[in-house]
Each structure stands twice: as C-alpha cells, then as structure tokens.
C-alpha cells in the first residue's frame, strides 16, 4: 500500500470515528453520567431524521432551520418525557431506577417507532449531502464527515467543561457519585436528571440530522442504533462523556485500516475482537479513569 492510500484510509478512519462518537454522544451522557440506559436514544435519532427530511424539503432554508429547531424541540420532548414518565420511578426509588427506566424507555422506543411509521409511512428517509468534498493534495475529505468530527470534538470539550466547571454540571457529577449525599446538600435529583436527559435527547436529535445525510434511516432503525451506541460506550468506558470520541476514533481507524489491508469483510470482526480483548484487561472500558486518560 502506498503512502497516499494509507493516509487516505487513516483520514477516513478518523472521520468514521467522528460518526461513531456522534451516534453515542447522547447515550453516553445518559448512561455514563446519569446511569440511565435510554433505550429510546436511537428512536429519538430516527424521529429527528424524519423531521429534518420533511423540513428540509418543505421550507426554504429548511436545513439551517432544522439544525436550530429540531434538537431544541427533541430536547423539550425529552424533558417532558423525563418529567412525565421517568421522574416518578426515579423519585420513588433512585437506587433501583435502572430496571424501570429500561422498561419505560423500551416502551417509549416502540411508541416512537410506531409514531414515525404513522406520520411518515414506511418509506426510508435520506437527505442529500450538500457539503462538497474537500481536496487536500491527493487526499479527499468528506465535507460532511469533517464537520461531524469537528462538531464532536467541540461538543465533547463543551460537555466536559460543563460537567467540570458549571454548577449544574457539578450537581450532575455529585448525583452520579452519591445520590443521597447530593440530595442532603440540596441538589434536586429529579431536576438535575431531567436537565441531563433533555441535553441527551437534544444530542440524539443532532446525531439524527447528520446521520440522515450520510446514510438512510427507516422507522425501525432506532433500537439497532441504540445497541451500536451502547456497545461503543461499554468498550470506551461508560463513566465519561469524552470516552466515546476516543473509542469511536480507535474503532473507526481500526476498521478502515483493516478493511484496506485485509478486505472489508474482515474489518468489523477483527476491530471488534481487538477491542473486546482489550476489555478483558480493562473491564471498565478503555478510556475511563485509570485507563488511557482521566475521564472527569
């Protein structure tokens, strides 16, 4: 393999890592920090993707409007969802919240799936990628994927800074570390968790907007995407919002290089086996505290 091909593969792998990180961002915040496994993560992504397609086709400047409106609206839906459905069980038994949350979000995922089927029929959603490729000498760079990667770096840094340097972020971390102690010092568990869930849902929606410009989306794609994101979080380390970016980059580069060297059919299996083998030595994830870097 010549140098240009190798660099092109490396570059594409890094960009693919950005896509993986984007998929996992919302779920990482919910699961990693809040301890809530939101099985409706992928369904919010799908809902946002369909809404974006409709808005983009129906309204002038629909793309820009979609990026401004849809994450905010989905965040709002997330807030209402948490308050109406998850707040009660969380208040009653915060320490045993995982099981009811799983059931409720699974139900929510199925409802959202049906809602999308009813509203948009069964046809696939897909949006034309309007970013032109960037040419760097002999290397081509997908404009859309580059934007995703830049956004993910900025977003991860922003989330990290929010959790570390703001009051609400500190409240959330305190809640994640010791719920009882956090409540004793006056932190509202439901309010703080609702805020995290709102942001996480907004992130899922943002992922949907980008995802639908790269790939196609069907109403039933929600749960498979959630599982994919969950795998990445487990491998990267669930106690950090930055870890999915690192894990995504590693997985993306591994997959692309292996596909280039050995053929596409080997890429996923070897990359995943490598990561799972690493997990045997670092069961808390590759990029958590005590791992390659400190989380938060």
């Amino acid at each position: 393999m010549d140098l240009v091909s190798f660099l092109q593969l490396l570059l594409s792998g890094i960009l693919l890592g950005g896509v993986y990180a984007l998929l996992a961002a919302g779920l990482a915040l919910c699961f990693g920090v809040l301890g809530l496994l939101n099985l409706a993560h992928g369904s919010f992504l799908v809902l946002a993707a369909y809404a974006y397609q409709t808005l983009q086709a129906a309204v002038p400047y629909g793309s820009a409007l979609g990026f401004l409106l849809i994450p905010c609206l989905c965040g709002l839906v997330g807030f209402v969802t948490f308050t109406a459905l998850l707040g009660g069980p969380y208040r009653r038994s915060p320490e045993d919240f995982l099981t009811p949350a799983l059931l409720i979000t699974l139900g929510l995922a199925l409802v959202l799936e049906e809602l999308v089927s009813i509203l948009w029929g069964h046809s696939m959603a897909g949006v034309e990628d309007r970013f032109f490729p960037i040419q760097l000498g002999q290397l081509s760079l997908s404009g859309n994927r580059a934007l995703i990667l830049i956004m993910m770096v900025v977003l991860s840094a922003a989330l990290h800074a929010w959790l570390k340097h703001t009051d609400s972020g500190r409240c959330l971390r305190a809640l994640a570390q010791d719920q009882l102690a956090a409540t004793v010092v006056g932190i509202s568990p439901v309010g703080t968790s609702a805020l995290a869930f709102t942001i996480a849902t907004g992130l899922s929606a943002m992922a949907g907007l980008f995802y639908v410009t790269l790939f196609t989306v069907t109403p039933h794609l929600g749960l498979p995407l959630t599982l994919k994101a969950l795998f990445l979080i487990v491998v990267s380390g669930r106690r950090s919002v930055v870890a999915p970016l690192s894990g995504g980059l590693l997985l993306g580069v591994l997959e692309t290089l292996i596909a280039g060297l050995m053929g596409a059919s080997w890429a996923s299996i070897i990359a995943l086996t490598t990561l799972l083998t690493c997990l045997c030595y670092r069961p808390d994830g590759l990029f958590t505290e005590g791992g390659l870097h400190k989380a938060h």
Partner: protein
Amino acid sequence: MRSRTCLTVLVVLAIVKFLLVPEESPSAPPDAIRVGATVSTTGKYATEVGPFQSLFEAWVADVNQRGGVYLRHYDRKLPLRLAVYDDRSDAATARRFCERLITVDRVNLVFGPYSSPLTFAASGAAEQHRVPFIAVCANSPKIYERGFHWIVCVIDAAPRYTYRYWEMIQAEGKARSVAFVVEDSLHPVGVYEGSRELATRAGLQIAAAEVVPADTADFTPVVLKLKKLDPDIVYVAANIPFAVAFMKQARELKLSPREFHCIHHSGIFRQPLGSAAEYVVGQSYWAPGMRYGNPERFLSLLKTAGINLDAYPWSPAYMMAFEIAEEALSRAGTLDPETLMNTLRNLRITTLGGPVWFAANGVGTINAYPSQIQKGAYQIIWPPEVATGRHVYPTPAWEKR
C-alpha cells in the same frame, strides 16, 4: 321444568337438522372468489411494501366494481373477497398466516409475501394444502428447486435479474471491464453470482469483486481499490441503504467509472443522492411510457391506494400478479384448485411488464429492464422495442451531473 323441555327440544332439532340437511353440493356456485395475501405492513420489509394492503384492496374494489370475474362453470360473475394479514416481515409468521388463509379463510388463491425468505416459508403451506400460490417478489432459485407443484412466480430467477443489461452492454460493445461491489446478504449475492456469469459471457473482464458487509459505514478501502483498477462499469449489487451510502462516498472520493450500475435505484435511492444519482443505471419492472398491458388501470389503482411508484418500485410486479390471477381465474372458469393451478401453469399473457409464462418449476418470465436516471426521470434503455430513452454512456463527470 318447562323451559328445560323447550331447551331439550331445540337441541334435538338442531342435531336433527345438522344430520339430515345434506352438505352443500360441490357444484353449488360459491358466493365469492376468496383471495388471500400476507403483506409486510410492519417489520423490515415495510419500507418496501408497507402500504400494499391498500393496493390489494384497490384491485379487489376495481374488479368488484365491474361485477367480479366471470366463471363459466357457474355461469356467473363472482366478486373477489380479500383476506390480508401482516406477516411482520417474519418468515414463521408468514407461514402461519398462509396456513390460516387456507384453513380458516378458505381462500382459493394465495398471493405470496414480499421477499424470498418469507415466500420460501409461506409457499410450503400452500403446497401442503394444495392451494394455488402466486409468488410475487421472490426470485431466489432455492424456492423453485423443491419440485413444488402449487407455486408460480411472476418474476424471473435472481441470477437472470440483470440479463437484459448485459445484453445491452454486449450489443453496444463500449465497455470492457466491470468491478462488482456486493452487499453481503441473500438477494444481492444471488444477483451478483448470476451477473458475474452473464458479464463474463458478454465478454467483459472482471476487474474486482468486493463482497462487503451489509452494515459497512465507510467504503474508502473499496473505493481506493476501484480507483486504481479504473473499471468501465462499477456494478453495485446491493439494497438501497447500502447503495446510497456507497454512492455518497464514491462521489466524495471522486470515483469515476464510465458507468455506475445499482441494481435497485428507485425514488428512495434517487432522493438522498440528488445529482449524484444522475445517469446511474439500474433495473425497473415498469416505467411511464412503456406500452404493455393497461398502464392507465395500474396508475389508477396506485392513485386509489395512495401509493407512490417512486417510493414503491415493486408495485408493478404486484399489478402483474393481479393480472395473472384475474386471467387464470377467468380462463379456468372454476374454483377447483387443480384446474386453476393447471391453468396458471399453462398461462401465457401480456401483462403490464410484458409477456409472461411459467417454466416447469414455476418461475415466470417477467424480468426487469435496464433503466437510467436522466434529469430525475427513469428511462428504459433496452431492449430497443421497449426503450423510452437513449443510453447515456459514458456518464458525464461528477461536476456536470
């Protein structure tokens, strides 16, 4: 006491009536022709055929509006009565509902579900109960290698899916080499295997054959390889999600063969690709401008059913199945299963997609036509007697699309 006596008398009378009244004579005319189908209203195939229950209903309503189908054995027109179940895109469910259609709904004719795996399962029930079964979109040869008597299929077998395209390439004599990019799943691999043989027979050099996992998110390694090989044709044997993702990256990485061929390139392929879909060649069962059958009736049924041809490219195949069923019923003139099945097997008619007849194993002759996306519309480009437009080869550069 009195009420008990009355009840006993009623029960005895009911039993006597049951025993004495003779069973309906087999020759007594039935009140309707019962047809049944399973449709993937939910599940993974819903994106392909989700709203097709409406298409069945529109067809039945259309036939019944004309009084039904004339069956000479009963010397009357009988209306169609439809039973449809959602098979949830699941083979076991399709089989179960096919059994139900035959044993509970007592249908005279079953239309197969969408896809080869579901049809493989469901057709077993029809064979077991000896009921005519019309497979619609199920072209895996495995279905027809079992020696079943009670099945016919509208479309030709998967390996021949693109034979007209290779005929055209050979006749034009412009392309010399082809590289295959294949989604690693049942139908695309089946089409690829047949196409590879047809391409070789057409005199093309096989530059590469990359079988890639269905959930591939990055095609850079494949695209780089193809750029080096520079084949005349890049032939993408894949379902639409895979093909869309590949074409997007092909454009980003400036892969520029003389022609892209994507075996499925309907409206849901075209829409997310925009100008990148221009000049892509694929397969269509029907396109506006073709003169076979009764296109006006087809378009009217689509309108009634609220189905967009661009989004549901399999709808013409269903229309052909309806035409076959109507004609077979009419020619058989009876609902006797054996007569109806023999009529189906010996049928030779011209449908919306062209002439159809069935091989000994039940496989039909309807095959897709090569079509090219030109200015957002589909033009059939081969054979000349069916073509609605001219084949543009080589494809203009990306910037000029």
